[in-house]
């Protein structure tokens, strides 16, 4: 054991090294988020953070809970596959607090034209018209109920009232 006679400085150095390693582990424990590595090389809690973001569009299921009368008309018409907020805009706030958040009626002049203006680029079987020629400036809802747009369906006058 003669060779260990002068090895004390090596053990002191090894002790320092072990101490530094422990300090590293402690610092690492505090700096690295708890959920890092839960599912992979990323912070697992980020998934929950993103899933908790607020909604802007309530979804048509929420609308139909209260507006079942309009939902019935809508389900029978040609627009059955067009969801409520596609025209009425994001209304999750209204769904959460119907009394204080009241939606504004969409402008049919812009809204109807966006989809139904005739263009060679649109699918041939999609109903499209030259707006100026078709209506001559008369508002769309005079003849068409947006919830059931085929003329001769429900009367167009209920559309403005019904959409409130």
């Amino acid at each position, binding site marked *: 054991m003669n060779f260990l006679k002068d090895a004390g400085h090596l053990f002191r150095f090894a002790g320092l090294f072990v101490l530094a390693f422990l300090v590293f582990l402690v610092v690492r*424990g*505090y700096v690295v988020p708890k*959920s890092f590595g839960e599912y992979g090389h990323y912070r697992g809690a980020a*998934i929950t953070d*993103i899933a908790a973001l607020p909604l802007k569009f309530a979804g048509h299921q929420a609308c139909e809970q209260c507006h079942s009368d309009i939902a019935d008309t809508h389900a029978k018409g040609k627009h059955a596959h067009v969801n409520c907020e596609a025209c009425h805009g994001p209304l999750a706030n209204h769904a959460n607090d119907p009394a204080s958040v009241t939606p504004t009626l969409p402008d049919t002049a812009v809204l109807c034209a966006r989809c139904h203006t005739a263009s*060679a680029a649109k699918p041939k079987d999609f109903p499209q018209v030259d707006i100026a020629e078709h209506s001559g400036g008369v508002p769309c809802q005079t003849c068409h109920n947006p919830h059931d747009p085929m003329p001769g369906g429900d009367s167009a006058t209920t559309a403005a009232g019904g959409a409130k």
Partner: protein
Amino acid sequence: MSLSRRHFLILLPAAAVAWDFVLAQTPEAAPNYNKSDHWWGMLIDIPKCIGCGNCVRACQAENNVPDGYFRTWVERYHVDDWNMTTPQVISPDGGKEGFPVAKEDAGKYFFVPKLCNHCADSPCTQVCPVGATFISPDGVVLVDQTYCLGCAYCVQACPYGCRYIHPQKHVADKCTLCYHRITKGLTTACAENCPTGARQLIDLKNPNDPIHAFLKTHSVQVLKPQMATGAKVFYNDLDGSVR
């Protein structure tokens, strides 16, 4: 047992490390959404798209996407009979307010909505140096914006151009497939607001999802299949000129 001051000081950091491990194992509060039961994607039915821009507006409203940046956008292709390989592509303001009226002429027109392809083998997540972007266990490519440095490696790596650096937050931003909606049983904002059903959220792990029947009977493609990204946005009836 007597503990000397010296031994106590040695044991202290070890105890701290042990306690940290205990904390790390505490499971988070689990809602009734099980990540391992889903594998999300999207179906784009090209013949149904009318280029109204509803999806782009809905996405910007739902996700506070800054003006001039897009998590989804719509392109209009015009392919001439005499030049199939160089289509003319326009996307004015991402197609947000629709497209100019096209006159009938030679060649064909069609719309191609684009968004993050939520690749199963995504090039963007592989290049992140800090683990800020990742594929969630249910197949959605997400960005941890508290971790992102804004180095933009991922923006360069995405072969589909679906990422951008947020002008105010200075971190990477992209489509989350409306993760905050689909985990609550809703569909994405773009699919919810598509008037023709051209965009549909699909869950490949759900055996009752109509996508399985659709894939059997339709000619469906992904974008840039040669890059082997495992893209999960499927395009029905996609023209060969689309890049």
